[in-house]
């Protein structure tokens, strides 16, 4: 056993114990650690964004562009996005600043401009991506063909089971007609698949939560107490 003398380890230990104290009941130590984590995360994001995003992508190129303008006069290169000194960065910065118009009631409508650009961009990227990357490949993966049995018979049987599961589950969520006759049996098959899915998800969730607990105990026993080598 070799207890750590590193103050950062001790801070980590104290905060870990504060959070774990919630398992007994809600208390001030837990709330302190929770608020501290939130505050630190926000401060970290702000500071990192300033130094690693605003500085290299906005302040430095625009600053360099002003210097270049003062020294050499106007030039087309100051409007080139590939140049280290350019004024173009001011355009997205200006559009981004329009978010703050939310605080000026008379001009609050201006906030729609950055929101519109943001939504338009993401919609344009996401819709084809969902079809190309998710819907079509998954649909293709569900279709059973003679090729599904080429690798091995077991692989083919799994492919058939997946197909039955997909059709059964879709039938279970088909509410436009009463589940009677073949529809009833298809829906029943679907609910069995759904329950197996829930069971697997729960099992994985338990595994994940235990892993997190192991991570904390590993830290306490190894880094702090030095019990584990």
């Amino acid at each position, binding site marked *: 056993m070799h207890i750590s003398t590193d103050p950062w380890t001790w801070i980590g230990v104290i905060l870990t114990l504060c959070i774990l104290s919630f*398992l*007994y009941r809600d208390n001030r130590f837990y709330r302190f650690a929770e608020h501290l984590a939130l505050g630190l*995360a926000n401060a*970290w*994001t702000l500071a*990192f*964004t300033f*130094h*690693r*995003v605003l500085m*290299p*992508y906005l302040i430095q190129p625009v600053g360099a562009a002003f210097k270049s303008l003062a020294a050499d006069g106007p030039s087309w290169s100051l409007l080139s996005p590939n140049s280290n000194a350019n004024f173009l960065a001011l355009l997205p910065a200006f559009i981004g600043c329009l978010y703050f118009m939310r605080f000026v009631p008379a001009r609050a409508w201006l906030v729609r401009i950055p929101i519109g650009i943001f939504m338009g961009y*993401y919609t344009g*990227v*996401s819709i084809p*991506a*969902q079809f*190309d*990357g*998710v819907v079509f*490949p*998954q649909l*293709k*993966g569900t279709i059973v063909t003679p090729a599904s049995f080429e690798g091995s018979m077991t692989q083919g049987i799994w492919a058939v089971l*997946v197909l039955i599961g997909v059709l059964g589950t879709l039938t279970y969520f088909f509410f436009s007609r009463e589940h009677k006759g073949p529809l009833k049996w298809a829906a029943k098959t679907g609910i069995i698949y759904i329950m197996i*899915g829930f069971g*697997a*998800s729960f099992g*994985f*969730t*338990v*595994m*994940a939560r*235990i*892993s*997190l*607990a*192991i*991570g*904390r*105990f*590993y830290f306490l*026993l190894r880094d702090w107490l030095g*019990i*584990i080598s």
Partner: protein
Amino acid sequence: MKLEKLVKLDRRIIFLTMAAAIIFPLVFPFELPMTMQKTTRGLWQVIEGADPTKQGVILSCDYGPQTEAENQPMAVAVIRHCFARRVPVLLASMYVETTPLSNRALEEVAAEFNARATTNADSLIYGRDYVNLGWVPPPIVPMLQMGSSISGVYRVDWDGRDTSTLPLLQRVKNYSDVAIVVSISGGSLPMSYVAIVQPRFGIKVGAGVTAVMAPDFYPYFETGQFSGMLAGMKGAAEYEDAIAEKYGLKETRRAMAGMGAQSAAHLLIMAFVILGNIGYFLTRRKP
């Protein structure tokens, strides 16, 4: 019936028992037989097949401290495998909170290898063999821009150095020089690589995901969209085991160390579920 008390058992007793079930195997470790799942093997094979002279591996670390216990051993294992084969590693983080964690993993493994190195060629040198690209928001921008120029979107690295001067980025310029993008994530970000990046650039994508997320990602492995996947701490342990076996690298293996505790905790939970159900049914029988 005493078993009926199980349904009213104080949850703090369960927590204490669980803590004991975790601590005991950590302090007195035992090794369990480990077989590599095909999801883990898929990732292993792609990195084994990478050409170290021409290709790099982009390791996209996209997790926070809350899933560090599961994701960090994955990052360490993948970096260790790449370095064992001298495949350059380009570390990127799509979430800001990951940057110090992933940087620690990179530095830790580089230090391991450099401690054994005897010559400059043996050593792992920042900028030549590995680089930490840092963080550029929002994720969609670097994900797409890396297809044309990595140093174009990451102008400065984690330490604020100009990336265009780094030798590695003059060699590995975009996705066409990359063997695989491995997204180690506590959320659904690997899906963005599959949906947005893969159809456009045809790059191989691997994932390292928490056990909670794993069931959502299995269908994408089955269709071949993910070349490989590390599912939870078990996936990381399998990877650590494979590296130890093939390359004899038996340094800190956090996931392997946790496997005994994981098994003990699972057995305890199964016992609680069975006993809880027995108690429940006995209660129901009473009028």
